[in-house]
């Protein structure tokens, strides 16, 4: 169990970055780098973090960063890993750090390829549930019912289940996390750091301008996401599914907050009818039931590769 006091004092995300007020992605980035340390190379596609780094000639990131085209994170990272290896450069972690667009939509091919090749890197998707960098258009990670600029009456399709897609690649480690539960997040990063092969983390990062929520609520919203079951913290380690402790509490229906408490704080859900909210509640309850049964089970058959 990690103590927050043990977290490194070094700030590798320098103050003065260009993120919006209350940006949880910026928070997640800061915490990630505290755990990963300075022997890290980041590969960052077009996403909010491209802007968060700030403009030439300054940069808010004090580690080497390769900014790359939108679709290319998984492939560029594969190249960096191979280049380091052939040059005999050891003990440098390569991290793909991408938004939901660059992961579940335009970036999915390159990521899938990298995972299938068992590329030795960590891929972290920080998910604000839309194309944040370009002004909040829908992505396939946008949840059902959410307003975005391209789904003005609410998205009609469910959120793509990226964690399970990655698990199906039979990679050694998949986890969901959120900066609102920093200890859980840090423990997962520490665990991922020690594993070889492709490791995938999917983090929900509340976005005040995109979600139409107050800037000071970004941590609280993340907490509510977990407490309502709208975001479930889990790990899939070598194919075995396990629910993380903050979400395990919520398996008990009496301890589960109604989804309303999470949705009402976000303007993007403001248009939902009572029926639609009930539909979301039903889906959350069904998902948690399903996860409860899945606990300790394999999500794919055991193979030798």
């Amino acid at each position, binding site marked *: 169990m990690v103590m927050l006091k043990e977290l490194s004092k070094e700030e590798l995300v320098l*103050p003065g970055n260009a993120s919006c007020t*209350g*940006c949880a992605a910026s928070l997640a980035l800061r915490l990630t780098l505290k755990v990963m340390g300075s022997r890290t190379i980041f590969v960052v596609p077009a996403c909010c973090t491209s802007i968060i780094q700030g403009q030439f000639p300054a940069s808010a990131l004090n580690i080497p960063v390769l900014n790359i085209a939108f679709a290319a994170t998984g492939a560029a990272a594969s190249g960096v890993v191979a280049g380091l290896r052939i040059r005999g450069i050891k003990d440098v972690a390569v991290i793909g750090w991408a938004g939901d667009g660059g992961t579940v939509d335009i970036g999915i091919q390159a990521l899938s390829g990298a995972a299938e090749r068992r590329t030795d890197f960590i891929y972290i998707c920080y998910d604000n549930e839309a194309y944040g960098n370009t002004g909040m258009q829908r992505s396939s990670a946008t949840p059902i019912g959410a307003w975005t600029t391209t789904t003005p009456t609410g998205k009609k399709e469910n959120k793509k289940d990226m964690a399970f897609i990655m698990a199906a690649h039979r990679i050694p480690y998949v986890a969901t996390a959120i900066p609102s539960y920093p200890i859980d997040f840090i423990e997962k990063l520490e665990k991922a750091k020690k594993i070889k092969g492709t490791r995938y983390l999917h983090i929900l990062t509340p976005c005040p301008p995109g979600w139409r929520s107050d800037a000071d609520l970004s941590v609280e919203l993340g907490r509510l996401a977990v407490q309502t079951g709208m975001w479930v913290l889990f790990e899939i380690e070598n194919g075995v599914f396990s629910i993380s402790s903050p979400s395990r509490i919520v398996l008990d229906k009496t301890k589960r907050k109604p989804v309303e408490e999470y949705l009402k704080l976000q303007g993007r859900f403001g248009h939902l009818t009572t029926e639609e909210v009930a539909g979301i509640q039903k889906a959350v309850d069904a998902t948690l039931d399903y996860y409860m049964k899945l606990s300790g089970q394999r999500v794919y058959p055991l193979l030798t590769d």
Partner: protein
Amino acid sequence: MIDLKKCTKCLLCWVFCPEAAIERMADDTPKIDYDYCKGCGICAKECKVKVVSMVREE
């Protein structure tokens, strides 16, 4: 603004600041760098003993 007299040095404000605008001093007291604070208010919201207050900059 942080009322250091009542601060319990739990470090939550330091952990949760998205901007690295709160410095963790040697004795674990938090110190806000007002040049870089964006005024999001997460620190005030998350402080368990409510010693962080948001004051408008004039």
